[in-house]
């Protein structure tokens, strides 16, 4: 790894606990560091402050890290797989697949689907199915712009079906789904953090084994084949890992746009490399930093207005993506 890359990664790594500290302490109720320490190591549920840390602050921070990193990695995987800097789990309809599956589950009113495992299962299946649909299209649609349009059409199609489901569902389940659909990091409960972390670590763990083939894939599919990379299997593995990461986030936070599109591009501009070890570490850190920052903003605005996290990521992310497009044209 080059010295410049190492320095940038270390800066990001140092920033992470700093921003995490701001994230934990910015809430409306002031908490002391003793409250945080006790909440983790010496918990008593009769203390409101400790309860607040354990049930709200910490899960929200962990979710910001998990969601930011996961979406950024998923975006990086999609962009290299489809050789397209404007690809991402959201744009290509993988998030909408997860949303549709979750909508089908929650709006059906069957209680099994609203359990933790049910929700993750639905989102993963939805993400996986739509991941393979996009992959299938990519085999025929060679033009990268056309593939993005196909992804956007898949997204519109699924949201139409989701809207249709909403009109025929009960008021109660509609409320659950609408809140979920706004996207937020604070609906996660402590009891869910365990399973989320397990899936997250699995996703990252497997991503490290993709570093070598991803480096080759930058040259295109045929060139990678000639370097001995098993491209067919690789495509499937990439889609499965993307679905795992994007599905996980969508299940627990609802749709969060632009992280998966903007952060991998930001990483490439910052690190100026195609070495996927550097990019993977960069995306993990920058994805987390970005979403923590966005959520600090959400928390800072809370006394005045309630802004869904999805709104902040879009307000910041969309102009950045337009900037990338203009920069490429120049």
């Amino acid at each position, binding site marked *: 790894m080059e010295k410049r890359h190492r320095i940038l990664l270390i800066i990001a790594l140092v920033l992470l606990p700093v921003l995490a500290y701001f994230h934990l302490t910015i809430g409306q109720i002031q908490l002391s560091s003793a409250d945080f320490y006790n909440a983790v190591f010496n918990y008593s549920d009769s203390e409101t402050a400790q309860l607040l840390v354990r049930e709200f602050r910490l899960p929200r921070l962990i979710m910001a890290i998990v969601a930011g990193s996961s979406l950024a990695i998923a975006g990086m995987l999609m962009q290299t797989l489809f050789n397209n*800097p404007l690809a991402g789990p959201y744009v290509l309809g993988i998030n909408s697949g997860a949303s549709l599956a979750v909508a089908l589950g929650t709006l059906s009113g069957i209680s099994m689907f609203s359990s933790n495992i049910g929700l993750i299962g639905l989102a993963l299946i939805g993400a996986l199915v739509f991941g393979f649909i996009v992959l299938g299209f990519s085999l025929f649609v060679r033009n990268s712009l056309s593939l993005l349009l196909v992804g956007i059409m898949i997204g519109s199609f699924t949201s139409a079906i989701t809207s249709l489901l909403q009109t025929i569902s009960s008021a109660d389940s509609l409320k659950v789904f609408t809140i979920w659909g706004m996207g937020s990091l604070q609906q996660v409960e402590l009891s869910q953090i365990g399973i989320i972390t397990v899936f997250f670590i699995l996703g990252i763990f497997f991503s490290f084994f993709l570093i070598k083939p991803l480096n080759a894939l930058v040259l295109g599919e045929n*060139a990678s*084949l000639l370097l*001995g990379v*098993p491209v067919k299997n690789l495509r499937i593995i990439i889609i499965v890992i993307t679905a795992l990461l994007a599905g996980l986030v969508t299940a627990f936070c609802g749709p969060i746009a632009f992280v998966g599109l903007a952060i991998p591009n930001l990483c490439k501009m910052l690190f100026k490399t*195609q070495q996927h070890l550097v990019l993977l570490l960069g995306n993990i850190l920058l994805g987390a930093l970005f979403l923590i920052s966005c959520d600090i903003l959400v928390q800072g605005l809370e006394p005045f207005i309630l802004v869904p996290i999805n709104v902040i990521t879009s307000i910041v992310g969309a102009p950045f993506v337009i900037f990338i497009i203009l920069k490429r044209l120049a």
Partner: protein
Amino acid sequence: MIEFKNTQIGYQQPLLFIDELNLNSGEIHVLIGANGKGKTTLLKSINGLQALVSGQIEIDHRLTSALNHKDLSNLVAFVSSKFDGIEHLKVYDYIALGRTPYTNLFGRLSSEDHIQIQHAINTLGIDYLSDKLTTEISDGERQLCSIARAMAQETPIITLDEPTAFLDYANRVKVLNILKSLATDQQKCIVLSSHDIDICLEMNLPILYIDSNSNHLIKTNTTSKSLLIQHCFGM
């Protein structure tokens, strides 16, 4: 090194016929023929990207039909006619990708890998490009980088599809000279397609031409341009 036996090359229908032909280590061969006669398809077939219509190709005494891409990546390297450069990809990292068949599970470059990469860079005289981005150098320089990548792959065979097509005269001669010396100095078997009949004849490069009537690949020692043009283009 490469042995053809009653080989028919093409897609559903055969395009190109090779009755019997051996291409040896230490030799360079230039494929000459009209557009659409199967030069690229032949190179694809040697690289295992296109199945044969019938017959066989043996590489290092092993049938290509029995070799997977992993095996082939240790035997044959391929250079395409144009490499456009890739955003944020450095020249050194690009050439390093030639080491993919040798690196560990995470693609980490060993000291041996770095030695081979540097050796390829030195052979092609492109040390001054190492730290540049593949998008900020000229077409000619990029073609040299692609050849360096193929060299770093350390295969006994290097195939090139019209490697001089987008180059100016000086760079054409330079690339062909480098390929010629790779064959003689490093005992590589080099097969390239080209439309540069004049330069190849001037440089005395062995020619394989595709006869426009019979669609057969024929080895020739001729030095006559008009004869070659007559065979290849029927003119």
